[in-house]
């Protein structure tokens, strides 16, 4: 008896964490798997099998939603990696206003997404917005940033990048600063220039930072909702609908079971896309 107690002793420390995990993660997840199979009015439910999933896949705007979600995740992810890396290099170099610039770039990350969305949708107004009135002064006729269905999603993605790039930059700054000084010295002895330094030292050796930024911003992009909702509500029409906003609309329509089914689908999609990506990136990292 005492041996069992002794042997399991160390697991007791996991108990509080396990309880919290079960109560606020596992139980709701399992419940949502269940409710996705029902017609649910929050009080009553009726088991209807896979009907919700079929209805959700028949949703006319779903194809746009899937396409948009992927596009949005890829655009924001790529831009955050590229801009984050460049800004990271810039902000670790020998410039005098480094500290000030670092906080300026990180600042947008701190502002509420809804506030950013509302501010930008005002600035992107086609005739009265700040952006187009400025362009007009330069003699350029600005587009309807959020009203043009071909452009609206990209406009929102750009705002997302503006808001999120500060976080990516911070990760890159940490990654770049952790590169040992010896590499630079070696490069100097070999007579390499700034470009060599960038391509042959910084890019490969900040790989862990790159992987973190890719994973974080890709998953963030797939699940993105708040900024799109604040700026376009999925419109005009269905043109900027993401999977998350389609789910939200089902919930708004009072179709709780259907919305839950959508969430289960989103969960699976994110897992199916993000998990292999994570494995792939990790393997690359190990090879280095």
């Amino acid at each position, binding site marked *: 008896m005492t041996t069992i107690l002794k042997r399991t002793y160390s697991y007791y420390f996991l108990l509080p964490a396990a309880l919290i995990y079960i109560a606020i993660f596992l139980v709701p997840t399992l419940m949502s798997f269940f409710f996705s199979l029902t*017609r649910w*009015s*929050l*009080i009553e439910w009726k088991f209807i099998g896979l009907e919700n999933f079929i*209805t959700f896949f*028949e949703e*006319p*705007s779903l194809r746009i939603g899937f396409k948009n979600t992927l596009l949005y995740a890829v655009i924001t992810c790529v831009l955050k990696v590229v801009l984050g890396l460049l800004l990271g290099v810039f902000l670790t170099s020998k410039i005098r206003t480094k500290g000030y610039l670092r906080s300026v770039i990180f600042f947008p990350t701190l502002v509420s997404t809804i506030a950013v969305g509302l501010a930008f949708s005002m600035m*992107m*107004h*086609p*005739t*009265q*917005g700040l952006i187009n009135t400025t362009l007009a002064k330069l003699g350029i006729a600005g587009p*309807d940033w*959020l*009203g*043009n*269905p071909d452009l609206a999603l990209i406009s929102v993605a750009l705002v997302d990048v503006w808001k999120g790039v500060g976080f990516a930059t911070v990760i890159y700054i940490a990654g770049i600063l952790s590169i040992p000084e010896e590499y630079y010295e070696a490069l100097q002895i070999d007579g390499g220039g700034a470009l060599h330094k960038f391509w042959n030292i910084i890019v490969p050796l900040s790989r862990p930072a790159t992987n973190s930024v890719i994973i974080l911003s890709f998953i963030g992009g797939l699940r993105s909702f708040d900024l799109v909702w604040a700026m376009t*509500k*999925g*419109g*005009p*029409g*269905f*043109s900027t609908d993401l999977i998350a906003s389609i789910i939200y*609309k089902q*919930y*708004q*329509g*009072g*179709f709780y079971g*259907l919305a839950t089914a959508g969430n289960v689908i989103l969960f699976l999609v994110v897992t199916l896309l993000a998990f292999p990506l994570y494995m792939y990136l990790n393997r690359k990292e190990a090879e280095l």
Partner: protein
Amino acid sequence: MRQKKAKMISVLSVTALFAGVLAGCGGAAEKEETAGGSTPQGEGKTVTISLLTDNTQDAVNQAKGVIEAFEAKYPNIQVEHETRPGGGEGDNLVKTRLATGDMTDVFWYNAGSLMQALNPEQNLVDLTNEPFMKNVVDSFKPTVMFKDKLYAGPLGSTMGGGWLYNKKVYSQLGLSVPKTWAELMANNEKIKAAGITPVIGSFKDDWTTQIVVLADYYNVQAQTPKFADDYTANKAKFADTPAALRSFEKLEEIGKKGYFNKDFLATTYDAGLKMIAEGKGAHYPMLTFAIPAIEQNYPDQIGDIGFFAQPGDSPDVNGLTVWVSNGAYIYKKSEHIEEAKKFVEFTSSIEGIEALTKMSKPSGPLLVKEAKLPDNVPQVVKDMMPYFDTNKTAPALEFVSPIKGPSLAQITTEVGAGFKPAKEGAQLYDKDVEKQAKQLGLQGW
């Protein structure tokens, strides 16, 4: 030592956290108790009931007016006013609060299809046999009826769905009120030629895009009188019924001919009201509930704004699609049902109506028998009266059928903006409706 201190702090903070959570749960009930017990004014103790309305300026004003008059009449009943957002977000909130048992004693909410989705039998107090129901205009009753029982008293006035127009622009260009769709389009052409926006589109608030389709229902009903029943029973579709499809085509036509303002996709409802008041746009397809807002923000221009029903294709068929007012509902699990009934009775009485219309001008005829419109009603309401006097009105579809697809606003945005042809929009809407009918468990779907 330091470790001990840290442990102490963490224990304390956890305790504080839990205490906070518990206090948060009990808060609401406690408050009511103290409110009930603290002021025993002579006869009986004071009871506080709560009222939930949406947060538009107009609804807040109405509530303020009614509560003041009500508390003066019943000094023992206090009313606490809460607000919620409008639109789909508000619908969600009401449903969630009902489902979680956290509803206010009385709440103001839409009649018609939205009310059907509230699960009335389970959540609402049956008011069928209340004496004040006898004073309520009969046309209101079917819109708050579920399985032959009535669940709400009316709030104030009806409203019309149609076209607000700027009279100054009309007289300036020598136009007359159109009786057919073709005449309306001809007017638009002349207005456009004069350099004024013919039709205001405020697609940024996408609910406003539905009006042209919804306000056309009088014409649909005139041509296919059985449409509402067949539609509810899954026997008629928008896309296959020419009269109903026509509603979508009308919207498409406005967009195609370029009658909307240039930045219609970025224009909000408030900006739309400004345009019609200032005559920057000649027409605004809208519900007359916009009137109190225009009156408040542009008091000097309200007299310039007139109203006509959305015309059909024949001059002989010209009538108004009518929205009835919100209803005042009582939550079934309320602890103060008697007091809540008194409040609903008051809002459905001539006295209550007077208190309400004092704060916010009626947007159409009133829903309580023998209640008279004040003399100084805005021009728009005067323009609506002939339709009522000659009995040329029809309720909007959402009051005669429990189904209204949740994506209509996005679909009408696409049709109006020319992303999709009318026929495709109508087909898409039929699908949207099917989803809702299945969720509501209607027969025949």
